[in-house]
C-alpha cells in the first residue's frame, strides 16, 4: 500500500496546481440527470427513424429494428425473449433502445463500443436482420425516397457509412430527460414523493448505487451477476448467453459478467435481467438484494426502492413515457 501510495502520489504530483476537475456536486450525488437536449441534425434523425421502422432492412422484409425495440413500449417489446427472424425465441432479453447513447458499451455483453458497430452487427446477425450490405444497399437504392433523402441528408448515395450513421444518429436522439428524479436532482425537492426519497436513500445505503450510477443509473461498467450468491446454480439450466462477457474475452474472471444495465425507465422494461426471468420490479429488487448483496430486503424497503425507480421514467419528445402505447 505504501508503494502504491507513492505511485499514486507521483502521478498526482503533476497535478499539484489543483487541475483535478472535481466539483462539489460530483462528490455529492452518484447519479446525474440526463441532459435536456441533444444537438443532432434533424434530417438525419428523421431518416434514421424511417430506417429504424423499415422492415426492408431485414432479408425477409419482416423484421424492423422497431419490431423488438418498440418506441411506444419503453424501447423494447416486453417479452422475455423477442422473436427471431425464424420466429423462435431469441437467446437473450432485448434491452431498451432508449438512452443507449449514455451506455459506455452496447448489449448485455458490452462487445460494441459504438451504436454504429452494434447496428452493423444486428443487420448481419442471422437471428435478426440477416442481411448483407450488397443486398441491403441495392434494396435501399431502389427506393426513390431513400435515394432522395440520403442525398439531402448526406449529399450522396446510400452507403454503408450513411445507413449506419442515420441509424446511430436516430438512436442518439432517443433520450428521456426530465424524469421526476432528474427534476429532483436539479433542485426541485417536491418532484418526487417522500416514499421515493426514502427509496433513493435506501438505494444508496444498500449499495445498489455502487454499480447503478452515473447519468444512466447503470450502463457505465461491468459487474458479475451473483456476487455473494450463485444466481445461476439457483436458477439452473445454464446456457451460453449466461456466460456473459466470457463469450467476448474468454477470460475466466469474466464468467457471468454483464454490462450493468441502465435503470432509466426501468418501470417500463419488464421482464428483467438478461434472461428476462423476472416479471416485476419488486421481484427484481429482491433478486438483486439476494444475489448481489446477500440480503433479504424487507417488503417495505422493496416498495420504497420501487417507488424511487418509478421516478426514473423520463420524457421522450416532451411526453412522459407510458405503460401502454
Amino acid at each position: 500500500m505504501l508503494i502504491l501510495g507513492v505511485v499514486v502520489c507521483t502521478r498526482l504530483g503533476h497535478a499539484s496546481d489543483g487541475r483535478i476537475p472535481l466539483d462539489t456536486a460530483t462528490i455529492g450525488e452518484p447519479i446525474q440527470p440526463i441532459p435536456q437536449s441533444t444537438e443532432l441534425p434533424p434530417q438525419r434523425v428523421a431518416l434514421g427513424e424511417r430506417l429504424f421502422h423499415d422492415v426492408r432492412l431485414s432479408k425477409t422484409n419482416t423484421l424492423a429494428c422497431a419490431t423488438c425495440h418498440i418506441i411506444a413500449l419503453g424501447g423494447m417489446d416486453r417479452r422475455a425473449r423477442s422473436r427471431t427472424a425464424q420466429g423462435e425465441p431469441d437467446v437473450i432479453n432485448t434491452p431498451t433502445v432508449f438512452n443507449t447513447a449514455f451506455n459506455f458499451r452496447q448489449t448485455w455483453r458490452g462487445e460494441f463500443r459504438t451504436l454504429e458497430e452494434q447496428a452493423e452487427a444486428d443487420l448481419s446477425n442471422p437471428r435478426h436482420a440477416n442481411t448483407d450490405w450488397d443486398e441491403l444497399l441495392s434494396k435501399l437504392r431502389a427506393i426513390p425516397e431513400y435515394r432522395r433523402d440520403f442525398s439531402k441528408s448526406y449529399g450522396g448515395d446510400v452507403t454503408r457509412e450513411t445507413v449506419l450513421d442515420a441509424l446511430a444518429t436516430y438512436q442518439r436522439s432517443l433520450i428521456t430527460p426530465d424524469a421526476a428524479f432528474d427534476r429532483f436532482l436539479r433542485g426541485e425537492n417536491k418532484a418526487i414523493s417522500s416514499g421515493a426519497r426514502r427509496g433513493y436513500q435506501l438505494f444508496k445505503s444498500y449499495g445498489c448505487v455502487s454499480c447503478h450510477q452515473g447519468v444512466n443509473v447503470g450502463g457505465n461498467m461491468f459487474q458479475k451477476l451473483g456476487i455473494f450468491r450463485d444466481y445461476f446454480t439457483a436458477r439452473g439450466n445454464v446456457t451460453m448467453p449466461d456466460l456473459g462477457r466470457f463469450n467476448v474475452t474468454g477470460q475466466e474472471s469474466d464468467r457471468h459478467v454483464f454490462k450493468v444495465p441502465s435503470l432509466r425507465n426501468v418501470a417500463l422494461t419488464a421482464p428483467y435481467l438478461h434472461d428476462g426471468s423476472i416479471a416485476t420490479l419488486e421481484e427484481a429488487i429482491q433478486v438483486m438484494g439476494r444475489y448481489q448483496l446477500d440480503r433479504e430486503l424487507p417488503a417495505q424497503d422493496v416498495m420504497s426502492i420501487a417507488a424511487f425507480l418509478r421516478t426514473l421514467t423520463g420524457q421522450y419528445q416532451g411526453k412522459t413515457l407510458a405503460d401502454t402505447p
Partner: protein
Amino acid sequence: MKFRTAPNIWHLLGIGLLLTILTASYLMGRPIDSDVHARILDHGRSLIEANANLDEQIVLLRSGLLRHYDPVNETVDNLRRRSAALGIELSKIAGQSTQAIAQALEGVRAAVNAKEEQVERFKSTNALLQNSLMYFSMAAQQLIVVADHTVAGTPITRTTGTLVARMLAYTRAPHEQNTELVRQSLAALEGLALPPKFAQDARLLAQHARAVLDLAPATNSALSNLLAMDVAKRARELLSVYLDQYAAAEQQTQIYRRGSYAVSILLVFYLIFLFARLQTSAQALTRANRALSTQKERAEKTLHAIADGVIATDARGVVTDVNTVAEELTGYGQGEAVGRNVRDILHLVDKDGKTRLANPVAPVLQSGTAYRTSQPVTLLSKFGTRSAVEVSVAPIGSDEAGLGGAVLVVHNVTQTQELISRISHEARHDSLTGLRNRSEFEQLLAEAIRGAKTLGDSHMLAYLDLDQFKVVNDTCGHVAGDELLKQLSTILLTKVRTSDILARLGGDEFGLLLQGCGVAQGQEIAEKLLGEIRDFRFSWKGHSFDVGASIGLVPIMADVVDVAEALSHADIACYAAKDLGRNRIHVHTPDDSELVRRHSELQWVSEIRRSLEEDGFELYCQPILKLDARDRPATHFEILTRYRARDGELVLPGAFIPAAERYNLMGAIDRWVIATVFAGLGNLTRSNPGAHDDLLLTINLSGDSINDPSLRDYVLIQAQHHRLNPRQICFEITETKAISNLQRTVPLIETLRGAGFRFALDDFGSGLSSFGYLKTLPVDFLKIDGSFVKDIVEDTLDHAFVSAINTLGHVMGKTTIAEYVEGEAIAQALQKLGVDFGQGFGLGRPIPLREAIPGLSRGRAPDIWSSSADAQTAD
C-alpha cells in the same frame, strides 16, 4: 548544317523528360504537411493529458472522492479517440513513415487497450470494495450503538472497536500482519455468543470485512497495474520517433531540392546549347522558322519558370540573358544586366557579410571547368538585400571554336537555411519561453549523469514548480498564464550561471541542471532563484499576483542510476518542498521520509471525506470583542475548524488544509461548516426565541467556495431551511482571494448581503494595492491584517498604517476589526485609534463552540436531499 525535323522531336522529348524529373523530384521532396504535423503533435499531447487525467480520476475513485464512472469512461473514450486519430494522421505520411513509427503506434494502441482492460477490472472490483467498506462501517456503527445500550454488549463493543481499528490500519497498509490482525478480530467476534438481535449486523460486518480483505488487494493491484501502463511514455516514444522521421523528411526534402536544382542546371545547359545551335544556324533558322519560334518561346518560358536564378554570359563574361529569379536576386533587370560584365551585377560576399568574393565566372571561362560553391554564400542585391545562395557556374562549349560562354545558376537557400535552423531549434526548445524543452533537457541530463559516473563530476538537478500558477490561469486566462511563464523564464535566465541549463519541462514545471556544483552551492542558487520569484509580482490588466515556487534538489553523482530516476527524485523532492509549505527548497535524501508524508496526504483526503460524512470536524470559535467594552461577554465570534483525530488529538487546519486545497475539498469543508453552524444557530433560536438575537458568527470562505457558482444558492437554501436570521452570519473572505477573483466575489457578496448576510474582508492591508478595490467590495467589516497590529505599540510605522486603514474604513462606512490583539497594551492603543473591534489571544483564545455558546448543539450536518423530513422532526 542541316537541321532536320526528327531531332526537334528528340529535343522536345529531352526537355519534357527533364521537366518531368524536375516536377517529380519537387513532388517527392515535399516535407510533411504542416497541418498534419500540427495535428499529430496535438493528438499526441492530448493523449498524454488524457492519460494523466485518467490516472487522477482513478485515484479519486479509489479514495471514494469520485462517486460515479461517467467521467472515467469519457476519458477512456478520449484516449481511444486520440490514439485512433494519431493512427489516421500518421497513415497520411505513410510514404515517408518507417517501421519504427508503426511499431511505436502499435505500442501506444496496445498500452491504451491494456490500460482500458485494467480500468474495467478496477471499476468492477472498486465498486464492490467501496460497497463493502460502506457496509463494514455501517454495520460496525450499528453494532456498537445497539450493544452500548445493553449489559451483555460490552464485549461486543470492545471486539467491534478493535476490529474497526484494525481494519482502519489495514486499509492504510494492507500488509499481511494487518490482514492477520483483522482476521483475528473477526474470529474473536464470531467466537462471542451473540444474542439474536446482534446476529444480523455481526454477520454483515464479518461478511464485508472478509470482502474487503479479498477486494482491496485485487483493486489495488488493478490500480497499480493501470498506473503502470504508461500510455504517456508510449505516446512520448511515438512522438519522438515521429519527430525523428519529421526531421529526416525535412532533410530528404533538401536532398530532392538539390536534385531538382541539379536537373535545372542540366535543363538550362540544354536550352543554352539549343540556343547556341539555333543561333549559329541561319539556314536552320529560316527553314525551321516557325518551329523554332515556338521552341524558343517555350525555352524562354521554361528558363523563366525555373526557381533558380540563371545568368548566361558569352565567352568574355558579358551577360547575354538573365531570368526573372536572377533579376530579383541581383536587383538588376534584364535591360540593365544584358551587355554588362557579370561581375558588375553579381555581388557575392562571404557569410560574415564583409569580404567580397571573387567573380566565379572568370576562372570558369579561363579553365573551362565547372565550379560550385562549397557552402552557401551571401548575395547582395543592387538594393542591399541579402540572400543566402549556392552558386554554380558551368562552361558552355560551342561546336568547334572553344568556349561559347558560361551559365551561372544561383540557388536561393535563404528559406531553407532558416528552416533548418528553426527546426533544429524548435526540436530542442520550448516554443513559449524559448527555454530548452524536456527532451533536450533529458539528453543534457543524461550526459551529466554519464559525466558523474565516468569522470566523477558532481552536479545538481533542480526541479522547480510554480505555486499559484493556477490562480493566474483561472482568473485571467491562459494568455496571462503564458505571459507569466515568459516573464518568469526571462528573470530566471538572468539569475543562473552561464554553464547552467534551464529548461521548461511542461506546464509550470522547470528543470535546472547546475553543472559542476555541490549541494551547498546548489542550495544557494536555488535560494537566489526562490527569492527572485518571490520578489516578482505579475500584473495583468490591473490584477497583481504573488508568485511562489517550490524547488526540489537532487545531487547528480556517480550513484544516480539514470535520467528517469534523477527526475523522479527531483519531482519527489519538489513535492516534499511544496508539502513543507510553499516557497521552499528540499534536497532529496535517499531515505526520504517525505514519501511517507505524501502518502499521508492522500490519506488526509479520505480522512477529510470521512470527517465530512461523519462529522469528524469540530468547530471552535474565537471571540471578537468591542474594544471600548472589553469586559462585556462576547456576542461576536469567528468560527474555526479543527479536526479530531481518532486518537483524540486535536489537529489544527494547517495540517489538513494543504491536502484539502490540493484536492479541491475546501469547498466541501466550507459547506459542512455552513450547514452545521446554520443548523446549530437555527436550533438555538427556536429553542429559546429572542435570547440570542445579538449573536454574530463569522464563517470563513475559501477560494474554492468563492469560485463555486452554486454556493450562493446553497447558503440561501440552508438559511431558509433553518429559518435563520441572516443578520447573525458574517462571511469572511481574505483580501487576496477577493481581489484575485473580483468578477465572482462582487456578485456573491451583493446577492448574499441583499439577503441580509454580512461580509468581512480578512487580512486587509496584506496586499498593499488594495485600497482601490475597497470601493468595489461592498463589505461590512474590515479585518486589519494582524502583522500590522502585533507591533503597533513599538512600531510607529505600523501604528500609522493601522490608523490609516481604520480612518479609511470608517470613512467608507465599514466597521473595523483588529486581528492579533495579543495583549492589553495593544488593545488600549487600538481603542485610542478608534478601532471598533479586536480579536486575538489577549482578548480570548479559541475554544470549542459548544463551550462558548452552550445551546448551540452540534447537530449532524443536514442532508439537503432529505430536508423536508428534517424540518418536520426539528419542529
